[in-house]
């Protein structure tokens, strides 16, 4: 492991990679801060840039963008009560009242310290958990991978917000359907190409991610007036006051940070759970642990109420890299985009990554430490200036996002048809969003589709066409049982509700 850490250090500490961490964190913070745009859009917008870099540098940049975007989301939550992403909704519960009380600087500083602590503690866990899991997963076979992918896909749906379980499953299936467009990897025949040359290689992952996230999110913010714009009580983003946090306040939030980091990391590791669930769980846990006096402050600007979700969402962001790096299974929409970008590089994350490309594996982990330090040293003093981005009028920001989305895809393919396909897909995505269908499961299905089909085919061939591969290996069976259990709760919920309503 020590050798690996040294390899990671030597790669991550190359000046260009350090610079990329800075650029990533900074760009991620600014993009994540814009209401409506989350880490998925931030990373997607960066992908065209990463194509010009080597895989380790590209992944380091994307990881930096990820932490930056999560922190940026917190800034708009605290100052505008307009969370850019679901993962920072819990931050707004206490962060915004604290800012309204006249302490926006303190709220942002606490958020920055908590993000740093949560991210760093989780990165330490990652340092030990990832190699251990990678070694175990070296023994995985096609059947196990197939089972893991089914688990990854179903758990994203199972963790979808209340009442959206079936909609999320439907979107996962849509993603899988879209992944079958193009030439079949195993049989070499064309599927759903309708004789069009443009579709022979299938839909581009970058195009789909840009259209369904960056483009449709920007269009959605035009369609609906953003919450922050209507918020007359929004905090003045140009004067955010003192960033000072007292020693007593640090003492008060220290146990919360420790607990929320551990909780956030383990929730982040679970496929499908991610930063949103981690932040709400941490908030709930701290509220139930708080004294009766402190409990009254929750929702009115409690420091603990702000520290808990902010620590947990950053810890979960680091935790979500565990299944991605070790099993090649993304646990969230964001890591799915990173996986898609890695596949475009010709790199398959998973146990072989640990063996074959140790410099990529370890440099990402090491860059997380650097990323968290950068997040603190870059963002904390720059918060007053970065926050001014929120004051840039929407009429300038949205066209820029549209332009960067389109040109990002165009500069990869140099095919103008891609721009038309993007507008078409973004329009459909816009309508589906309005109908309440989530986009992340679709992207996950699209990215995992080809791999899942390939592993299923291999598992069936190995078992002579019999489905006995499901129970032949204990690992496969265990993963599929966990999958069934994950699905059980939301499925039971649907039918129990049905009974109560019809009774």
């Amino acid at each position: 492991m020590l050798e690996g850490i040294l390899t990671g250090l030597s790669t991550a500490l190359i000046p260009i990679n350090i610079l990329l961490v800075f650029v990533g964190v900074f760009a991620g913070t600014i993009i994540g801060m814009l209401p409506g745009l989350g880490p998925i859009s931030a990373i997607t917008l960066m992908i065209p840039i990463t194509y010009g870099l080597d895989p380790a540098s590209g992944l380091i940049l994307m990881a930096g963008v990820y932490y930056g975007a999560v922190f940026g989301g917190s800034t708009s939550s605290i100052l505008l009560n307009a969370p850019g992403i679901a993962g920072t909704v819990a931050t707004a519960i206490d962060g915004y009242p604290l800012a309204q009380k006249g302490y926006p600087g303190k709220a942002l500083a606490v958020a920055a310290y908590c993000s740093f602590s949560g991210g760093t503690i989780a990165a330490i866990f990652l340092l030990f958990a990832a190699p251990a899991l990678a070694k175990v997963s070296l023994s995985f076979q096609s059947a196990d991978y197939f089972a893991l992918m089914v688990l990854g896909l179903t758990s994203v749906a199972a963790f979808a917000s209340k009442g959206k379980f079936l909609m999320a499953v439907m979107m996962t299936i849509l993603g899988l359907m879209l992944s079958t467009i193009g030439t079949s990897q195993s049989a070499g025949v064309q599927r759903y190409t309708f004789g069009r040359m443009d579709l022979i290689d299938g839909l581009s992952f970058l195009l789909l991610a840009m259209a369904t996230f960056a483009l449709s999110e920007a269009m959605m913010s035009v369609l609906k007036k953003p919450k922050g714009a209507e918020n007359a009580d929004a905090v003045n983003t140009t004067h955010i006051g003192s960033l000072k946090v007292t020693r007593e306040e640090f003492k008060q939030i220290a146990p919360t940070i420790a607990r929320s980091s551990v909780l956030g990391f383990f929730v982040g590791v679970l496929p499908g759970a991610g930063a949103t669930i981690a932040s709400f769980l941490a908030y709930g846990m701290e509220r139930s642990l708080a004294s009766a006096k402190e409990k009254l402050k929750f929702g009115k600007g409690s420091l603990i109420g702000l520290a808990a979700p902010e620590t947990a969402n950053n810890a979960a962001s680091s935790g979500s890299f565990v299944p991605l790096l070790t099993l090649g299974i993304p646990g969230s929409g964001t890591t799915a985009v990173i996986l898609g970008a890695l596949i475009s590089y010709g790199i398959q994350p998973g146990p072989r990554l640990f063996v074959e490309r140790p410099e990529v594996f370890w440099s990402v982990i090491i860059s997380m430490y650097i990323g968290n330090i950068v997040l603190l040293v870059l963002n904390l003093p720059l918060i007053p200036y970065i926050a001014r981005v929120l004051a840039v009028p929407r009429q300038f920001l949205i066209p820029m996002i549209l332009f960067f989305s389109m040109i990002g895809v165009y500069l990869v393919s140099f095919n103008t048809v891609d721009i038309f396909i993007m507008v078409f897909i973004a329009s459909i995505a816009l309508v589906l969003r309005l109908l309440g269908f989530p986009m992340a499961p679709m992207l996950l299905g699209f990215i995992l589709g080809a791999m899942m089909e390939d592993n299923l085919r291999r598992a069936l061939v190995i078992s002579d066409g019999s489905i006995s591969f499901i129970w032949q290996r204990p690992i496969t069976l265990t993963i599929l049982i966990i999958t069934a259990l994950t699905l059980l709760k939301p499925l039971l919920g649907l039918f129990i509700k049905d009974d109560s309503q019809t009774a």
Partner: protein
Amino acid sequence: MSKDKVGASFFLVLSIAYGVLAFDIPLTFVGIDEVFTARTLPFALAVLGTVIALLILVLPSAKTDDSQKMSAAFRGLNWKLVCLLALLMVFYGMTIRWIGFVLSTILFLIGSFRVLGERRVKVLLLASVPVVIVFWLLISKVLGVYLDPGSLYFFLGELF
């Protein structure tokens, strides 16, 4: 009708059409006898998609308040602005090869700023021209990516 039911109806049609089109997927001579062919996953997805869409249609909606109704979901939205922006994006796609990256991007940005409410000519120019020039310099001169100057100029050159 609630919005999830409308979405489910769309997915039901899509799944059935997807399944029907799966019959058109050609099978190789060797592939016909295989357990897992190029049609296997599409058929499975079509069946799964149909079942899930039917479940959404049959089961009661999770929330039954007015906000879940189709009319409420599409009420009071700035469709006009979004349609104009979509048209500008299509225009951008049509012109980028013809009049070149710099001019088409400047036109797209000015058009979009204007659609979203900016009227001051000076601001329109200052917010678009420098950004495009810097981006063009970065892409073509620093990163060395070739950007087509535009076929229009080529034809004009041929003419004069």
